[in-house]
């Protein structure tokens, strides 16, 4: 690298160092706990940035005043953060002023800073970092060379120069700046003891300021790194930061208590203790000694920790020196709950509620009580009444705070700086209550309509602005495109569910707690990329539940919804319902269609408002030509000329007015013909046409008639993995189709007709197949597999027929695709 480039890169690096290195490296964001989040809004990055920015402003102001504001503030800023490391600063008005006005103290400061920073950057950060091996004894090892700390060849000299300046500098402002510089350098060469000693030696005199906070930040960071967590926690708390990386074990909490019995930091620290305890209970599941046969095995971590905490909490409550006793008792309740001691948890949370506590703790107690009660299995009649006050409060709170547009799918990704973590916690508690408490409660009692009611409430409350827009677009029939909140055009991907319902981590959690079944059977998908906006109403867990439960359950739910509820709890939950009758009628009709109850389906389709289908994102798929249910897709995708040898052409009839109702009418007509026509040939051909419609509308290319997502591929698959259910449902479709084809095959038709029937017939088809070896190359792997194909005679027949249907002759690839994917 040439020297100029090196210099430029160096300056850029310095720029970033002065901006970013003025604070300790940012800690990770607080983890996503379902439980016991007292509501500290302490996103670390935001805090760090604020701290840095505050100091930057203060620093610029200081130097701006130093040159009596004769130089523009911008020029000062440039000097401080960009120019000071250049070989020649004479072009900068700020430095020019210092030189010209013989501000020797300041010139000395900047000269020394330039010298030491240059050495530091050159040696500590720049060239040799990966080769660094600390010679200091007692220092921790690092295991990954990617994470090596900087090199410290002459850092001791750098430190000595700075420390000497601290001692000799008469100007307190400059002296304090030297202190910050040398603490920073110590910190970045892992000389934490040095950093601590410096602060303890010189820090007392630093006045309250952004600079002091910066110094304290390094000081606390250094304390943390030499395992003085308790002191670090107190220092951090004094500058308004609660570091989630600290291990707030009982001993740390005790030390803090002894030093500052009413520390405000306790809310955060106790929260961290409980959450860590909770995490350990989860991690145990993955430990080698975990007993998978023990369903409660994951629940109990090291109870000695909870016992030690309880002892400390009792002592603190007894002492009366802490003005937040409710915090400690509610934490005891939380630990008891994690340990599976639900009765104790309920007793303790009631006790905590009677004690004095901050607003955050009192709110937290309400949420904990809601969570505890929601999982109670010992009450039936009073269950909803018990939940009602806290649930009402939580719903009201969420409605007031609003639901961020990103929250569901961005967990684990970048969290916006202005995130209100307390609000987020409220959302999580609602989710936990409904999904892990209320729904399992009603599922156990076979009350699916109640499950649906609460899911409906959950989805309605959780609607964010994007969701509301989606529903509004749908209402206006504008599903296909619209503008998002940033003004960009968003295209709606017609048939698909909104993919975003729960995150992967949610699933992990739910499965760990044996609640995965609910979601697995209800077909909830893991969040993935969102390249398309989806139709909200067809992308909710509520819809998934209704889509996959029995018709009787859906009808019972509708009756319940129409009743308006008897109790206050029922009235409350039903007030949060989506109430478009067409939405429900259309769904019930579709569910009947899956069962071939086309007459019942027609009853519900007629109840639907005529323009409702246009509001569905599925509409386009139903009208698409190649998705005509009577097109013999394995022969050609375009079969307008097909007549099936019948007096009427079902494909053409469908094309005239493609809709679910048309399809139902045609299927009823075909069924009648297949069952009652006097001609055996007509009966056979109608049976074949019916089989085609049945197959195509369920697991074929016209799946949009009976499903809201890609046929069986979605509606029966869970999380992309095949299950027994998938196979059994697919087998069921084949069985039904085969039954109609058996009728068709009773008629000894021409060779083409018979062969077509056999091709569609799951059993008969096997006689038309033979095995062909295929070699597939995937990356560096080459696989040889054996695949089934139709025998050449059938293949030739079908290909030849294809040309009759005004479709370009099917080459082998296309042919294969159309045969096997229908």
């Amino acid at each position, binding site marked *: *690298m040439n020297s100029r480039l090196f210099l430029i890169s160096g300056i850029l690096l310095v720029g970033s160092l002065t901006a970013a290195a003025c604070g300790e490296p940012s800690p990770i964001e607080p983890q996503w706990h379902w439980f016991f989040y007292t509501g500290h809004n302490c996103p670390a990055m935001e805090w760090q940035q604020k701290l840095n920015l505050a100091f930057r402003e203060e620093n610029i102001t200081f130097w701006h005043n130093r040159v009596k504001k004769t130089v523009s503030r911008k020029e000062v800023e440039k000097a401080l953060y960009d120019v000071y490391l250049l070989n020649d600063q004479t072009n900068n008005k700020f430095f020019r002023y210092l030189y010209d006005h013989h501000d020797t103290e300041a010139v000395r400061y900047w000269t020394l800073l330039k010298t030491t920073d240059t050495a530091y950057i050159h040696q500590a950060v*720049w*060239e*040799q*970092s*990966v*080769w*660094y*091996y*600390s*010679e*200091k*004894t007692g220092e921790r*090892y690092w295991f990954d*060379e990617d994470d090596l700390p900087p090199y410290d060849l002459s850092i001791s000299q750098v430190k000595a120069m700075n420390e000497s300046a601290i001692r000799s500098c008469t100007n307190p402002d400059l002296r304090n700046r030297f202190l910050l510089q040398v603490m920073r350098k110590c910190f970045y060469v892992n000389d934490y003891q040095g950093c601590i000693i410096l602060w303890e030696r010189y820090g007392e005199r630093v006045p309250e300021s952004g600079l002091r906070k910066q110094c304290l930040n390094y000081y606390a960071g250094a304390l943390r790194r030499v395992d003085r967590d308790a002191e670090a926690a107190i220092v951090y708390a004094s500058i308004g930061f609660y570091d989630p990386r600290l291990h707030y074990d009982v001993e740390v909490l005790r030390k803090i208590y002894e030093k500052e019995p009413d520390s405000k930091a306790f809310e955060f620290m106790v929260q961290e203790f409980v959450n860590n305890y909770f995490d350990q209970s989860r991690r145990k599941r993955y430990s080698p000694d975990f007993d998978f046969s023990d369903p409660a095995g994951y629940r109990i971590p090291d109870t000695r920790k909870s016992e030690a905490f309880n002892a400390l909490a009792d002592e603190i409550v007894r002492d009366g020196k802490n003005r937040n006793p409710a915090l400690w008792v509610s934490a005891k309740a939380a630990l008891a709950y994690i340990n599976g001691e639900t009765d104790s948890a309920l007793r303790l949370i009631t006790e905590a509620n009677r004690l004095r506590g901050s607003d955050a703790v009192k709110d937290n107690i309400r949420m904990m009580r809601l969570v505890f009660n929601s999982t109670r299995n010992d009450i039936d009649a009073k269950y909803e009444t018990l939940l009602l006050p806290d649930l009402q409060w939580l719903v009201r709170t969420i409605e007031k705070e609003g639901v961020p547009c990103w929250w569901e799918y961005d967990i684990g990704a970048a969290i916006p700086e202005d995130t209100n973590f307390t609000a987020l916690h409220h959302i999580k508690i609602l989710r936990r209550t409904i999904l892990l408490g209320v729904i399992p409660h009603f599922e156990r009692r076979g009350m699916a309509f109640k499950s649906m009611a609460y899911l409906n409430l959950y989805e309605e409350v959780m609607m964010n602005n994007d969701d509301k827009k989606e529903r509004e677009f749908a209402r206006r029939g504008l599903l296909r495109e619209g503008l998002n909140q940033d003004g960009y055009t968003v295209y709606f991907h017609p048939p698909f569910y909104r993919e975003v319902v729960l995150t992967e981590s949610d699933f992990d959690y739910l499965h760990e707690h044996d609640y995965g079944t609910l979601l697995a059977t209800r077909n909830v998908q893991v969040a993935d990329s969102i390249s398309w906006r989806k139709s909200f109403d067809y992308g909710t867990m509520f819809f998934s539940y209704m889509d996959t439960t029995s018709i009787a359950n859906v009808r019972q739910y509708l009756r319940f919804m129409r009743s308006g509820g008897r109790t206050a709890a029922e009235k409350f939950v039903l007030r949060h319902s989506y109430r478009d009758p067409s939405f429900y009628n259309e769904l019930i009709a579709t569910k009947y269609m899956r069962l071939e109850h086309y007459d019942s389906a027609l009853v519900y389709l007629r109840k639907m408002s005529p323009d409702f289908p246009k509001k569905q994102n599925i509409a386009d798929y139903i009208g698409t030509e190649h998705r005509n249910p009577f097109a013999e897709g394995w022969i050609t995708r375009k079969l307008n000329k097909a007549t099936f040898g019948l007096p009427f052409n079902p494909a053409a009839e469908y094309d005239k007015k493609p809709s679910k109702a048309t399809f139902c009418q045609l299927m009823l007509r075909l069924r009648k013909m297949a069952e009652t026509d006097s001609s055996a040939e007509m009966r056979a051909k109608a049976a074949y046409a019916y089989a085609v419609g049945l197959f195509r509308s369920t697991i074929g290319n016209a799946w949009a008639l009976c499903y809201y997502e890609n046929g069986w591929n979605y509606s029966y698959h869970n999380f992309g993995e095949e299950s027994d259910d998938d196979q059994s449902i697919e087998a069921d479709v084949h069985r039904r189709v085969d039954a109609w084809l058996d009728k068709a095959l009773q008629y000894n038709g021409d060779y083409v007709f018979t062969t077509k029937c056999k091709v569609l017939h799951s059993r008969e088809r096997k006689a038309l197949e033979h095995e062909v070896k295929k070699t597939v190359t995937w990356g560096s*792997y080459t*696989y*040889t597999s054996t695949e089934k194909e139709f025998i050449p005679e059938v293949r030739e027949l079908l290909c030849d027929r294809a040309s009759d249907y005004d479709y370009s002759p099917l080459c082998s690839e296309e042919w294969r695709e159309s045969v096997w994917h229908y």
Partner: protein
Amino acid sequence: MRKTILMCAAALLCLCGCRHKNPNNKLYSGENSVYYWQTWYSTNDYEKRFLADHDIQTMYIRFFDVEPNHGWNDHDKCRPVATITLPDDESLSRFNVVPVVFITPEVIVEYESFTDHLAHRIHAMCVKNHLDIKEVQFDCDWTTSTREAYFQFLVEVREALKKYFGKDIAVSSTIRLHQLAQAPPAVDYGVLMCYNTGDFKDFNTRNAILDTKDVQPYVKYLKHYKLPLKLALPAYSWTVEFDAKKSFLRLNRFQNDYDNYDSTMLKKLDNGMYEILGEVPDNALKYIRHEVVSAKTILEAKDLVEQHYGKMPIVLYHLDSVQLSKYNDDELKAFFD
């Protein structure tokens, strides 16, 4: 400058070439030695007893490897990886510790001027861990095409070590069998690796760790090899895995007791080969070759080499109770004898 270095290298090479098998060199003594080739130094009771019983004086400890630094910034073209964590206590103080650094030929050829960093790091590790060393060993699978660069590197690193340690630090090098056919490097002595003799990726290889048939072609070079040599003998085992097409899949250093497997799952073939019964996909694990070298083979190889070279100090590769315990005390004694 480059020319000067090359000339120095040549001169040193000549000097080394003048040495014979029994130099007046304290480093090249007959004391028993072992390699330590793991990333965390820790010895269990067996290993401690082994070190005492066999009077191990010298420990060749792999400090770190140097690898190309793909994807790193431009200034760190190669970098150390897998650095060993050395003990906090004094457990190494009674040994003559020889740091060993494994370097890939690619690093030597493609990257220059890292010898200073390398020497400084070895120095830093010795300072931190209170090791007073006299020698550093380099392990590199150099070939004809990379020989010149490696030899030059050895000259440069010797200078760099002197700079940091403030004294002459001897330099030794591992010598692989195929390297015997080449001129020796400019080092104080070499350690002939009498292992990894075969191509472990080849399904037909009987034993890639050591097969005297594989050693045989190279022993002819020993008689006139102009560098004092120690002999490193293998005391390790591994399993090599192949798919149904007998293509190499992976090398597995974990120990399994294949003989006690369910015979309906695993069938023992000849030469330590096992077959997984039942149908498996073409690219899945089908054959396992468990390679372990018998004491007899090790002693045969030792005899073979010494017949052509004369008596050699022995370095056992490597200190690991799991591996060493496969041999009885008499056998272990015979290795060093």
